[in-house]
């Protein structure tokens, strides 16, 4: 029963969602609304579960003095730094209003820290491109040329360099062409492949053929 009940539930919910997509009328629209509400509630619980789990794992690591346990202190400190002012010192439900303690931490700690992490990509991308982007083969050369055109075409300097060229041949326009044709064709091929994969996997789950998510062997 531990496997059968989840399998029946998966199949039932899957079929309800498929049918209501094509027949958006009673009783399927009511069932879809109900199931969507349930899932939103489960999602909300999952956030709590995730937050509490993070706290538990980190505190456990500090207690046991596991590998790199010092980082866990920073994690717990960061968690409490934003959670306590958010819950208790930011005006209750209005904690996101400008001027609250939560807003202050969000703007002056969280935003600069996360922006810094992301901004470091610019430096690593430059270094990695210099080391790895070599015209070793015909395909790599084509990729390199496309990258040059898109990188220059996506900034105004590209048009400045090529403004003497006739309309339609300037770097921004060639970059647009690369994005709109070769890129789109490749993206479509990937998306169709992913889509077919999702459909087949979903059908296997709904029909109970795929059982690995239930735990144990198939």
């Amino acid at each position, binding site marked *: 029963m531990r496997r059968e009940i989840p399998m029946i539930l998966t199949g039932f919910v899957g079929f309800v969602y498929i049918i209501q997509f094509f027949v958006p009328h009673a009783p399927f*629209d009511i069932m*879809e*609304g109900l199931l*969507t*509400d349930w*899932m*939103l509630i489960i*999602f*909300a619980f*999952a*956030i709590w579960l995730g937050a509490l789990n993070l706290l538990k794992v980190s505190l456990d690591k500090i207690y046991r003095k596991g590998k790199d346990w010092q980082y866990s202190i920073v994690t717990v400190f960061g968690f409490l730094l934003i959670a306590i002012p958010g819950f208790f010192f930011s005006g*209750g*439900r*209005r904690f*996101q*209003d*400008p001027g609250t303690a939560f*807003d202050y931490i*969000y*703007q002056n700690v*969280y*935003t600069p820290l*996360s*922006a810094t*992490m*992301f901004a470091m990509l*610019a*430096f690593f*991308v*430059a*270094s990695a*491109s*210099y*080391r790895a*982007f*070599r*015209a*070793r083969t015909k395909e790599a050369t084509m990729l*390199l040329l496309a*990258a*040059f055109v898109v*990188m*220059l075409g*996506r*900034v*105004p*300097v590209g*048009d*400045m360099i090529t403004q003497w060229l006739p309309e339609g041949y*300037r770097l*921004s*326009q060639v970059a*647009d062409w690369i*994005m*709109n044709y070769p*890129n*789109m064709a490749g*993206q*479509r091929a990937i*998306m169709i492949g992913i889509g077919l994969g999702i459909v087949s996997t979903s059908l296997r789950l709904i029909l109970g053929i795929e059982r690995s998510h239930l735990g144990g062997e198939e």
Partner: protein
Amino acid sequence: MFEKLLSIDRRIIFIFVAVALILPLFLNISQYIAISPEVSKIYDGLEELKPGSKVLFAFDYDPPSAPELQPMAEAVLKYCFKNKLKVYIIGLWPQGPMQANLAIEVIRDDPQFADTPPVYDQNYVNLGFMSGNELVIQGMGSSFQSTFPRDYQGTPTADLEMMNGVNNFSNIDYIFNLSAGYPGTVEWVLFAVDRFHATLGAGNTAVQAPQIYPYFHAGQLQGLAGGLKGAAELEKLVGFYGKGTKFMLSQSFAHLTVIFFIIIGNIAYFATRGKKKQ
């Protein structure tokens, strides 16, 4: 010499990139910004809206993506407030509604809006974040109020004046999604557009934009702005110049720096390849 060029210390590259990014912030060089058709379509879609039309903003990003997406948000919000469009804000990312608040604070401080600052529940409402990813969009297709029972301040949605007559996507004239990943533009296309036939324009990070082009060309997405260039184009179209335009110079210099180092690396590679074979 070429061997040395082949193994430049990465710290030297970092310094060049830093200079390329920082120096242009102090320069005052105006650049011509060409408008791409996909960004132009967003503006065309907004231009078709009459005063009082309802625009739903989905803020699906967090601070790391703000340098690219925040200027887009500010530009389109300014356009909406200037043209008396009603703005409804939600976020599928927890940080989204906070980013919306930051954008509105910037607009409130803008001297151009000194006489007509955006007023809550008259010009805009912020329904806040709701967990559930694409299921939130699915829920909104049935009922906004059951999906968002309260706004971000805790006020019951039913008590908001702007929510009168707004029940689902059929009451929304335009959706503008600002997306940095999942859940984002793809989910809005799959559920709001394909399922509920909403009109959707999107601003995406430069990294994500190439994946979204097929939706634009299939007509599922009305317009698409990608990266900082997309933000600068939007600013030019709506006539409110901001950080998108300002930071384009830094991006130009940074791209040139990356290309410069790739060329150096390739010259050194080809110059030393023959020697290695010998």
